[in-house]
């Protein structure tokens, strides 16, 4: 009963496992087919879209490249003067004829850079021609100034004929338009001759131009143009050279040409290929038809101006602006229930202009394309599934059959009865085992005897070897009693301590070798504790009393009871090594001291890891606690002034690349108090690996803050001196002129004075002029007094001056002028009511600016003068703003504050006031700025140092 039940269990388990495998296979199949179904659209669209983009690109190449080449040629010919020998109009004819020879070029247009001159050539089509010109004027987008000028210029297509002084390089203002037709029915013989010569020229020279030598031409853009022709749209390709004095050449392509290249092979029945320019509009998208949600067929013929109202186009463009990742991958989007796939790719034209070629395909088309492929995949999958099921069934059944048999046989064997022979067999086995153990014992005994004999021999040999080893050893080897009495040693040991041989040293007590500093007690204690001491450094004294540094390796030998009996050890003389180390240490310290004395700090750095050491800089120069600043490149960098970082990086890179011998750079670093100090960092790579990769660098720092400060100071002083010098020179110049002028006049007036006729009318006039000149002379001299006075006045007492009080006093003093001019004066000193300045100077500041504002008012409006103060970046600013006639700063700006400068002849004035005010303000560290617009008004801003608030 138990037999059949276990068999049943086995079988059911087998079939259970088999069921799970079948379920897994079916699940995998379902999962794979669903995933495949989902992604099939994307896969198909990508390959289909790419394929058609490639086709479009090659077609565009056929379309654009020849034109590009011809434009380059034209430019080259103009630029190199090849055409100069021809009459200007013919030059144009030659160039345009060559371009018209291209099948895709419908007409050619040339213009001067200013757009005042045009030449248009096309194939004999009046309506088209005038329409084209209209379109250029109305429809061209305005991406840059050149084309803007080009289209806004008013040119007249009604003026026909040629002008003899017209050339491609030089335009003199006359308008020229020319028209050619291929069969030239209406042209006179002279023009016909030109044309023939042009053709001749083309044959001989034009086609010989080597394209390699041709300068590239800049393409401005492709523009869509809409004409009334049934073809719908025209593209104009315009080219302009980078130089101003060359021509602007435009070509137009009929949409039929573009379409020839785009529509010839539409990818799918309802898909389309299109081109568009980055900046503006779509150029072509033929034959896209889709069904909108009302199940009407909507044409996507995109040749009309309505193109831009098309929802699909709008979608593409609005997303284009948001995210031009279209170029990277196919994009899927849905409009009015219809899903489309779009893919774009850049296509470059000319030097730097980009066009985009694109493909748009409704998903329904793609499905259709991929449907057959889909079914094939499902079929193959299904066959695979059946195969998998069959194979797994075969495996399961082939395993199940032999296993069943095996189980049954085992059960049969277990049930067999073996009978009485069993006991005999057991006895025999026992005997045999006994024999085996006796034999094993015998072999073990023989082996043990043998081993003993070999060991004895071995012992003898190793003893003599050991002796030899000890004697030959360079290290001293010894054995002593616990008390330190030498028992045995080698020659090396004797020599270390200055003895000739073993016999001489053997009776000397070990204590004789110990240096006074040898801690014998501690040494022994450690030895007792550990039994062995390794690399123990100790000092000894030689036979002649010389200090010996030695390295000791000793072991304590104990007897069987564990009592210490002997000390055995080796000793190495390291006196020289210790001396060398000490010397090195000393020299390092000395170097550091020397550098410190010279105000330098040392640094080193591992170039690869950035780990290093600049302790001396951080501690001694910048005052940090060394544990606050990580000793690596990053730690150093954190202290460097950010403005200097870029220079440092480039300097270091130059050095690491091996282009400089060493790094020398000056930069700022922040010290502990947050002050920027100037540091000169020097250094160089000192270690490279075998491939020349820098490993270690080292160098020095010097604090050059003091030096820098001095340099700056020096520069400031010399600037100041130069300023004063030029001012003095100017002063000398002006005074010599202004003093001399009236004196000269007086001299001449006296010369023509008729002393014989005292009372003549003429003499009276001369006398009047004499008195005028004398007045002027005395005026100049008193001005000079004033000027000299300010130069001396520097010591005058500065005090805190209340602005409003002085301002009001000044107002009173010029009240009559204010009343006469009907001026309105507003003031507001609330932001900065006081300033540290010379009181009397402040009066002249107000006086000068107020009277100036009144003097230079606009005659047709009442003057409004606004005065206010405010604080700005360490200065107190006083602004005086008027609505007067203003000053043309471009013309007079730099002379405004100079001595004896006037800018308006209609007004009185000596040109002295502003000079004095400016000189006074600058004397106390301030300055004056001015803003002005002619006819609008002027604003003077006096900047006083804000010394009251302790800022600079």
């Amino acid at each position, binding site marked *: 009963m138990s037999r059949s039940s276990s068999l049943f269990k086995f079988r059911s388990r087998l079939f259970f496992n088999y069921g799970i495998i079948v379920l897994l296979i079916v699940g995998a199949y379902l999962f794979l087919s669903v995933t495949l179904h989902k992604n099939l659209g994307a896969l198909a669209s990508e390959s289909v879209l790419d394929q058609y983009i490639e086709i479009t690109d090659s077609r565009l190449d056929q379309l654009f490249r020849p034109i590009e080449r011809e434009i380059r040629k034209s430019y080259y010919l103009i630029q190199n003067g090849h055409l100069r020998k021809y009459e200007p109009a013919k030059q144009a004819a030659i160039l345009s004829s060559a371009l018209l020879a291209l099948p895709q070029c419908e007409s050619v247009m040339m213009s001067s850079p200013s757009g005042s001159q045009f030449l248009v050539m096309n194939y004999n089509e009046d309506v088209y021609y005038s329409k084209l010109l209209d379109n250029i004027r109305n429809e061209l987008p305005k991406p840059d100034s050149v084309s803007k000028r080009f289209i806004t210029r008013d040119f007249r297509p009604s003026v026909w004929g040629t002008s003899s002084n017209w050339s491609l390089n030089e335009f003199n203002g006359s308008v020229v338009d020319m028209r050619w037709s291929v069969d030239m029915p209406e042209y006179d013989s002279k023009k016909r001759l030109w044309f023939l010569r042009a053709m001749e020229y083309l044959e001989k020279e034009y086609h010989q131009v080597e394209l390699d030598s041709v300068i590239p031409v800049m393409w401005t853009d492709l523009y869509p143009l809409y004409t009334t022709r049934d073809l719908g749209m025209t593209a104009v390709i315009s080219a302009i050279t980078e130089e101003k004095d060359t021509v602007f050449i435009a070509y137009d392509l009929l949409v039929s040409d573009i379409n020839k290249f785009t529509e010839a092979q539409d990818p799918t029945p309802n898909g389309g290929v299109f081109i568009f320019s980055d900046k503006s509009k779509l150029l072509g998208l033929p034959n896209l038809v889709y069904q909108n949600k009302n199940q009407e067929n909507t044409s996507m013929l995109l040749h009309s101006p309505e193109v831009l109202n098309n929802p699909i186009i709008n979608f593409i463009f609005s997303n284009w602006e948001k995210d031009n990742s279209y170029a990277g991958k196919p994009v899927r989007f849905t409009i009015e229930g219809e899903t489309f796939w779009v893919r774009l790719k850049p296509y470059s034209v000319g030097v730097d202009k980009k066009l985009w070629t694109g493909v748009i395909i409704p998903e329904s088309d793609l499905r259709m394309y991929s449907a057959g492929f889909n079914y094939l995949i499902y079929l193959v999958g299904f066959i695979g599934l059946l195969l998998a099921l069959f194979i797994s069934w075969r495996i399961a059944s082939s395993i199940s059959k032999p296993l069943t048999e095996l189980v049954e046989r085992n059960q049969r064997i277990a049930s067999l009865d073996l009978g009485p022979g069993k006991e005999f067999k057991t006895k025999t086995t026992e005997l045999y085992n006994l024999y085996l153990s006796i034999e094993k014992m015998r072999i073990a005994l023989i082996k043990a005897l043998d081993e003993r004999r070999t060991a004895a021999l071995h012992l003898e040999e190793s003893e003599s070897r050991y002796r030899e080893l000890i004697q030959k050893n360079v290290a001293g080897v010894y054995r002593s009693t616990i008390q330190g009495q030498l028992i045995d040693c080698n020659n090396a040991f004797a020599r270390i301590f200055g003895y000739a041989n073993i016999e001489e040293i053997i009776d000397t007590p070990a204590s004789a070798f110990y240096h006074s500093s040898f801690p014998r007690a501690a040494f022994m204690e450690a030895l007792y504790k550990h039994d062995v001491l390794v690399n123990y450094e100790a000092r000894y004294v030689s036979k002649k009393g010389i200090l010996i540094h030695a390295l000791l390796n000793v072991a304590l030998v104990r007897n069987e009871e564990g009592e210490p009996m002997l000390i055995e050890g080796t000793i190495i003389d390291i006196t020289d090594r210790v001396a060398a180390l000490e010397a090195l240490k000393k020299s390092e310290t000395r170097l550091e001291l020397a550098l410190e004395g010279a105000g330098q700090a040392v640094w080193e750095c591992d170039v690869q890891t950035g780990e290093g050491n600049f302790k001396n800089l951080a501690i001694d120069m910048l005052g940090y606690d060394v544990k606050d600043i990580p000793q690596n490149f990053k730690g150093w960098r954190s202290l460097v002034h950010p403005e200097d970082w870029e220079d440092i990086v480039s300097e270091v890179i130059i050095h690491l690349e091996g282009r400089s011998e060493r790094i020398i750079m000056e930069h700022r670093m922040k010290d502990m108090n947050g002050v920027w100090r100037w540091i000169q960092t020097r250094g160089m790579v000192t270690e490279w690996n075998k491939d020349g990769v820098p490993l270690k660098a080292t160098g020095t720092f010097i604090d050059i803050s003091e030096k820098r400060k001095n340099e700056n100071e020096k520069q400031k002083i010399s600037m100041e001196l130069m300023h004063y010098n030029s001012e003095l020179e100017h002063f000398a*110049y002006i005074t*010599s*002129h202004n003093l*001399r*002028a*009236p004196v*000269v*006049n007086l*001299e*001449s*007036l006296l*010369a*023509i004075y008729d002393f014989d006729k005292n009372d003549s009318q003429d003499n009276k006039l001369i006398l009047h*002029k004499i008195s*005028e*000149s004398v007045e002027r002379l005395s005026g100049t001299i008193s001005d000079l007094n004033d000027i000299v006075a300010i130069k001396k006045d520097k010591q005058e007492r500065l005090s805190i001056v209340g602005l409003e009080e002085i301002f009001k006093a000044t107002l009173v003093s010029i009240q009559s002028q204010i009343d006469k001019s009907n001026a309105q004066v507003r003031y507001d000193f609330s932001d900065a009511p006081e300033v540290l300045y010379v009181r009397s100077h402040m009066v002249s500041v107000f006086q000068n600016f107020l009277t100036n504002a009144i003097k230079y008012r606009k005659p047709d409006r009442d003057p409004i003068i606004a005065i206010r103060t405010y604080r700005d970046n360490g200065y107190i600013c006083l602004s005086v703003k008027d609505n007067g006639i203003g000053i043309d700063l471009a013309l007079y700006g730099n002379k405004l504050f100079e001595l*004896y*400068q*006037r*800018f*308006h*002849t209609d007004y009185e004035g000596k*040109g002295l006031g502003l000079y004095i005010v400016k000189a006074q303000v600058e004397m106390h560290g301030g300055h004056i700025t001015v803003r002005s617009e002619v006819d609008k008004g002027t604003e003077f801003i006096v900047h006083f140092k804000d010394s009251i608030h302790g800022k600079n």
Partner: protein
Amino acid sequence: MVKTKTIIVVDDDPVSNFLCTRIVAKSEINAEVKAFLHGREALDFIEQCINSNADLPDLILLDVNMPLMNGWEFLDEYKILVPKMSKAIPVFILSSSVYNQDIQKARAIPEVSDYLIKPITVDLIKDLWSKQFTVS
């Protein structure tokens, strides 16, 4: 009859202009003086002559220090007009400045015939006139 020639004086000092007129009159050289107070006025006058084909002046006496447009600025603009003029007009700087830099600067300008230092005298005018307009 010999035609009366025209001299323009460009100077902001009215006394100087008065003197100039007097001295030209005294030197009996058959010339009339037109005075302008700054460069812009004089330049406008010359441009006007060019445009209306009127007689251009025969001599220019030019001061250096003037408001609005000084002598140097005048010369800069005058240079542009020279190619359009039907005859060459000698330009003399007449200044009270004895500053060497001014004299050097004037000498370096090809349009300037000479640098005269005030005061202007009858002899000076006569001498200058005979050199410029010797009857051939």
